[in-house]
């Protein structure tokens, strides 16, 4: 029989998110489901490259560390888990877990894998597709393409749980769908019941960034206080079969969950609140409101759902040259003038070496590095760090940037200290296209059968 209420917790909101609050919500949250979102827009491109080097890799690098901490207490309590830590190799993730889980005291569990989000072949077959960012044809990126994945919806997550799996591992799935999937499965909601899909999507949107709902990204001493920020707890949602949702967080944890934190997270990366497009529905959050029911407990009202679009969004990862960067610190009298001289010296040394860059960025950390405001208007600080970053297609030219900055220690203005050469980083950029849903063929595969 379908339950009347389920409780879904968030165990991670990005790939390197903190593990202890995830363990805490499993141990104290009285959860039915745990969702862990660990796949930023471009992460999957890097993991696709990992897989190219070693076919057993390509899952989220922190998978084993996180799961060793999470799986034993979760499975012991009968909490079902869904995560997109499969990244570019969900079956590889499932296989490596099976290898290690017995050592963690988890000899027996069932794992379903969602495949089919990877669409690189479809991209190659359709160079005419227009990029969403600039309308240019996809063709221009194809020679540099590193990955292409469609954002799948909650339907495949629900299908994963329908196998009876304790653990559903996916690659690219829309973040809110990791939370909506368990609701679809547990309550058997129709995939066309847009009122309920909207509520579930809203809950997922609020929860998917873990501590950002519960007092993270919020505190401002003396202005906006957060109790025990160090002990910030992760959020959970109580969802009823009729679609009602109330949000709370790990009992006894630090942080803050109220209308102010919910409002900030509601609008986080939402863009047009009347049309938040997911693979499952188009959420109209423009009428959403929050009711504080008790301390750290908030009810959601006013979500409206519109039918899902006929397309999936695909994020294409592609190589975009290299970035080199370095930093050097100066302090005391005339620090800013010495930093500026250091900048001119580095630029001139790179020029005399014949190295060229398509873009160079100069920052004075302590004055203008974050907001690119006019440094001339900023009060002169006691200490300042110069930072130089530059883009080039030549790896050696990229490496030279940080090396020249660091050599200011010995061959720059007086009193240059604390230099760092960040080296050259290969840039994996992303752009998007929309493709008809029917081009994508997701499948659910049991890990045992592999």
């Amino acid at each position, binding site marked *: 029989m379908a339950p009347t209420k389920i409780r879904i917790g968030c165990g991670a909101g990005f790939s390197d998110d903190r593990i202890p609050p995830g363990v805490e919500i499993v141990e104290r949250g009285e959860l039915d489901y745990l969702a862990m979102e660990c796949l930023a*827009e*471009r992460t999957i491109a890097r993991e696709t490259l990992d897989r190219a080097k070693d076919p057993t890799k390509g899952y989220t690098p922190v998978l084993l560390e996180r799961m060793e901490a999470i799986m034993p207490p979760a499975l012991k309590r009968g909490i079902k888990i869904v995560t997109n830590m499969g990244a570019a190799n969900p079956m590889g993730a499932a296989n490596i877990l099976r290898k290690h889980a017995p050592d963690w005291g988890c000899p027996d569990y069932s794992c379903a894998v969602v495949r089919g989000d990877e669409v690189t072949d479809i991209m190659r077959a359709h160079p005419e597709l227009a990029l969403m*960012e600039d309308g240019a044809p996809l063709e221009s990126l194809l020679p540099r393409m590193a990955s292409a994945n469609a954002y799948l919806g909650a339907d495949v997550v629900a299908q994963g749980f329908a196998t009876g799996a304790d653990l559903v591992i996916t690659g690219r799935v829309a973040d809110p769908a990791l939370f909506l999937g368990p609701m679809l499965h547990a309550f058997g909601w129709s995939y066309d019941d847009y009122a309920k899909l909207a509520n579930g999507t809203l809950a997922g949107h609020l929860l998917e960034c873990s501590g950002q709902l519960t007092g993270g*990204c*919020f505190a*401002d001493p003396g*202005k*906006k206080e957060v109790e025990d920020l160090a002990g910030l707890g992760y959020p959970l949602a109580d969802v009823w079969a009729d679609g009602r949702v109330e949000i709370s967080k790990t009992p006894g944890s630090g942080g803050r969950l109220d*209308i*102010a934190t919910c*409002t*900030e*997270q*509601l*609008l*986080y*990366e*939402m*863009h*047009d*609140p*009347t049309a938040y497009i997911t693979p499952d529905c188009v959420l109209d959050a*423009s*009428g*959403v*409101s*929050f009711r504080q029911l008790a301390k750290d407990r908030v009810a959601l009202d*006013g979500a409206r759902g519109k039918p899902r679009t006929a397309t999936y969004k695909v994020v294409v990862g592609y190589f*975009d040259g290299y*970035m080199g*960067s370095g930093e050097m610190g100066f302090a005391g009298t005339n620090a800013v003038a010495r930093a500026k001289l250091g900048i001119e010296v580095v630029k001139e040394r790179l020029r005399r070496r014949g190295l060229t860059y398509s*873009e*160079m*960025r100069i*920052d004075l*950390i302590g004055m203008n*590095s*974050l*907001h*690119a*405001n*006019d440094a001339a208007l900023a009060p002169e600080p006691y200490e300042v760090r110069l*930072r130089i*970053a*530059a*883009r080039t297609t030549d790896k050696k030219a990229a490496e030279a940037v940080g090396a020249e900055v660091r050599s200011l220690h010995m061959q720059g203005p007086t009193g240059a200290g604390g230099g760092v050469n960040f080296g050259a980083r290969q*840039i*994996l*950029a*992303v*752009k*998007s296209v929309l493709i008809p849903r029917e081009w994508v063929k997701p499948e659910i595969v049991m890990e045992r059968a592999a």
Partner: protein
Amino acid sequence: MSVRVYDIAHARAGDKGNTSNISVTAYDEAGWQTIHRELTTERVLAHFRHLGAGPVRRYELPQLRALNFVIENALGGGVTRSLAIDPHGKSLSAWMLMIDLPGHNEGAA
């Protein structure tokens, strides 16, 4: 009297590609009336223009006393390729709160 957005509202910034999404939520009704009236797309665009940003779109959520600003081209080419030290522009919420607005009436309700 003039007021800094920081004094009457709080903000959060997020990203998508080369677009920054910054919400501004008033602490109370008087603050809402001021940001609703004075924190215009023109003012926000002028404040972010040095980043090469624009256009700016503004969405209103009166029941939450919140405005949502979508600022295109604010992230130095986008999170994944920007040379900026804060490619996500998470700190841009603080820049939004530095805007000064005229005509704030603390007693407004």
